[in-house]
């Protein structure tokens, strides 16, 4: 019972994370939410996990849940990767704006050589 509660808590956290992820990437958010809900269902209905595991050719329900967890972790990693990409895009825009601004500034400055002569 304690393990079930802890797992439900963790998967519930993951479900909350899915809503946050969905704001950035709807598809990914939906996948995480789906995997989390399936996880909660299997935690409370181990026999269903066993039955489904047998149906798809996996020996035990516990293994199925473990695989599900691995998939979930990979989706979270993918989401973090996409978030990093978004950050990189913002950094690019900033760097580009600075580079273009500096080039304009250079144009506006009088020729230093002429001034000193």
């Amino acid at each position, binding site marked *: 019972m304690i393990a079930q509660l802890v797992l439900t808590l963790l998967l519930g956290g993951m479900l909350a994370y899915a809503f946050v992820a969905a704001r950035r*990437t709807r*598809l*990914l958010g939906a996948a995480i939410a789906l995997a989390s809900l399936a996880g909660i269902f299997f935690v409370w209905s181990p026999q269903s996990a066993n039955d489904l595991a047998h149906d798809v050719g996996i020996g035990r329900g516990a293994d199925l849940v473990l695989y599900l967890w691995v998939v979930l972790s990979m989706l979270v990693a*993918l989401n973090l*990767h*996409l978030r990093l*990409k*978004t950050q*990189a*895009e913002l950094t*690019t825009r900033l*760097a*580009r704006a*600075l*580079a*273009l601004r*500096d*080039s304009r500034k*250079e144009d506006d400055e009088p020729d230093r050589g002429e001034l000193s002569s």
Partner: protein
Amino acid sequence: MRNPAVWVVVPAFNEAATLPFVLGRIRLNGCRAVCVDDGSSDATAAVARSSGCDLVIHPFNLGQGAAIQTGIEYALDRGADYVCTLDADGQHDPDDLPRLLHALAAHNADFALGSRFLGTAVDMPAGRRALLSAATRFTRLTTGLPVTDTHNGIRAMTRRGAARIALRQNRMAHASEMLMLIRRSGLPMVEVPVTVTYTAYSLNKGQSSSSALRVLAELAAGLLRS
């Protein structure tokens, strides 16, 4: 009537060795060049400056796609009527630029893309040829554009076409993204035979065969983000 302003965007990362030749030939073809120094650690900026071309310096290395986008925005800001791009490593022949520009007018197109497979690929390694053929087939499938070449950096576009280009892929996947953007713009494009010359220098600087997988991964990530 004034002559149309033709700007050539030259993205450069540690290309001090080949830049003088490339920029000199661009000028001989009557075009203005903007070199985008993409955070080089060699004398790229100094060489570009001494050649008399316009120079934009990225504060750090962002990638070729980012440099091209910066150059396009710079050129449009300066009133370019036409914007061309070519690599700084000397593998493209700036003498092909007039042909690309002529094709825009002759075909009433907004994009003229260089094709080494319609033209000449000098000393192209067999592995590179096979990889590019596969990439071209993939590009045809994903974009629906009837191209004969892909990941060829020499191209010309009208001001209207250039304004539709907003590259988000900073690195090598930008070439595929460019074709997707062209497709999405719905503006006419034409392919033009060009000469691409492979040298030990350009092969060393260019994409490795394994980068094809990275390009695919970057494109997939880009699709997920959009």
